[in-house]
């Protein structure tokens, strides 16, 4: 089996992740609850993971790293803390439903900007035109459908100039691109633990630089006599028992990313992307690709005749796992003009080899 669906989740994990999960399940209890050894061992692991995340993303204060259960959970906290009904909110043309659905549920006045694929200039120009009366900007760092890298540092600077809070969805970029929380100055950065950071599913992270509201209340192991959640991070946003075994696995995944380095991971994935394009351009496939340095290791394509679901099935019959359809991002497909057909998405990881990619291209040509 060749796994090319890492944009959904990292199925292939670094050595050490599984063992860390098993070890945690066998030896760790609930952090912040008891004072006994299994509880304190869990607390130590959670703190170590929090610190590793703070270091990887340059978060000055470790308590501003909040554990959630996935990026959607993180985005819901961030969006619901900063949006109100009727509040003008700018979003890129490449947002996932985890951004658009909370915004529409709240009734925010959403304006989509920067719809042109792989055109960072278009994004920045439309941001400049619309930001003057915006209350919030929410922007993905990388499109989960097309791998389009949004100019997030320039966007962050513009938000600072106009004093508009920024929420960044780093679902596809955490572990793949350099993210400097302090330099960006975003209100919140949301990310999953189970994609580019190689943790287990059920792990997510929210980096906080703004006042947050709770979307869930419960036990925190602190201020127990108060009827309300503690007013300080991370306790305020971490109601209920932590996913300790998941966090232990996430810590092992982050160690791998640090040892390998984000730049090497990106360059490997980008090289595979370029190679795939070289192999397939001019064939029966329409590839959504740019030679510019604004695409990460994710590429979508369409066959000129074959339905994308049928193509994905034929690939799976040949042992290749990809994702077809709208990828929970109808806005991205609308922006790129692929809503009617959807696309087949190939997403790489450090565990995809050249040999595997050669096989994938050979199969695609045969189908063609």
């Amino acid at each position, binding site marked *: 089996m060749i796994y090319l669906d890492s944009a959904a989740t990292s199925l292939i994990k670094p050595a050490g992740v599984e063992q860390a999960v098993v070890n945690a399940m066998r030896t760790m209890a609930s952090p*912040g609850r008891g004072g006994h050894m299994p509880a304190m061992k869990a607390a*130590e692991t959670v703190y170590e993971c929090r610190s590793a995340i703070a270091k990887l993303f340059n978060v000055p204060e470790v308590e501003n790293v909040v554990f959630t259960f996935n990026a959607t959970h993180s985005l819901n906290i961030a969006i619901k803390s900063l949006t109100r009904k009727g509040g003008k909110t700018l979003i890129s043309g490449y947002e996932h439903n985890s951004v658009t659905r909370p915004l529409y549920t709240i009734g925010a006045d959403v304006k989509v900007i920067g719809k042109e694929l792989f055109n960072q200039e278009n994004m920045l120009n439309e941001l400049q035109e619309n930001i003057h009366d915006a209350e919030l900007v929410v922007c993905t760092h990388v499109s989960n459908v097309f791998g389009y890298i949004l100019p997030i540092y320039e966007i962050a600077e513009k938000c600072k100039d106009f004093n508009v809070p920024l929420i960044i969805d780093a679902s596809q970029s955490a572990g793949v691109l350099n993210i400097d929380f302090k330099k960006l100055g975003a209100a919140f950065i949301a990310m999953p633990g189970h994609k580019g950071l190689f943790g287990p599913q059920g792990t997510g992270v929210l980096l906080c630089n703004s006042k947050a509201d709770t979307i869930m209340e419960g036990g925190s192991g602190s201020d127990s006599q108060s009827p309300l959640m503690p007013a300080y991070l991370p306790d305020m946003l971490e109601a209920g028992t932590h996913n300790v075994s998941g966090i232990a696995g996430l810590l092992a995944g982050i160690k791998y990313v640090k040892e390998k380095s984000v730049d090497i991971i990106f360059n490997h994935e980008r090289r595979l992307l370029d190679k795939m394009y070289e192999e397939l351009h001019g064939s029966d496939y329409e590839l959504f690709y740019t030679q510019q340095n604004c695409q990460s290791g994710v590429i979508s394509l369409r066959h000129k005749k074959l339905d994308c679901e049928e193509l994905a099935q034929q690939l799976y019959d040949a042992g290749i796992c990809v994702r077809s359809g709208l990828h929970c991002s109808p806005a991205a497909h609308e922006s790129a003009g692929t809503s009617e057909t959807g696309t087949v998405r190939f997403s790489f990881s450090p565990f995809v080899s050249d040999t595997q990619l050669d096989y994938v291209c050979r199969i695609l040509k045969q189908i063609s």
Partner: protein
Amino acid sequence: MIQYLIMCRSLTYAQKASKALERSGITASIVKAPQALSTGGCAYAVSIRNRINDSIVILKRYDIPTGKIFARSSDGNYSEVQL
């Protein structure tokens, strides 16, 4: 030897304080604070055996918030320490 408890607002802050003290060469451990000492219910504290004045200076230098400080006498009773 006197045991000092530096009260912390949460487990994470207690961990942060403990790490900062350890980095400065002060042996510190995290304990659940006695209920009688915690004002809002469950709380954690950093336990140290000496250098209480140095410890407070270090925690202030790292901008780590702390609560009250208690000393435990040989009879097991706690008394608040004013520094």
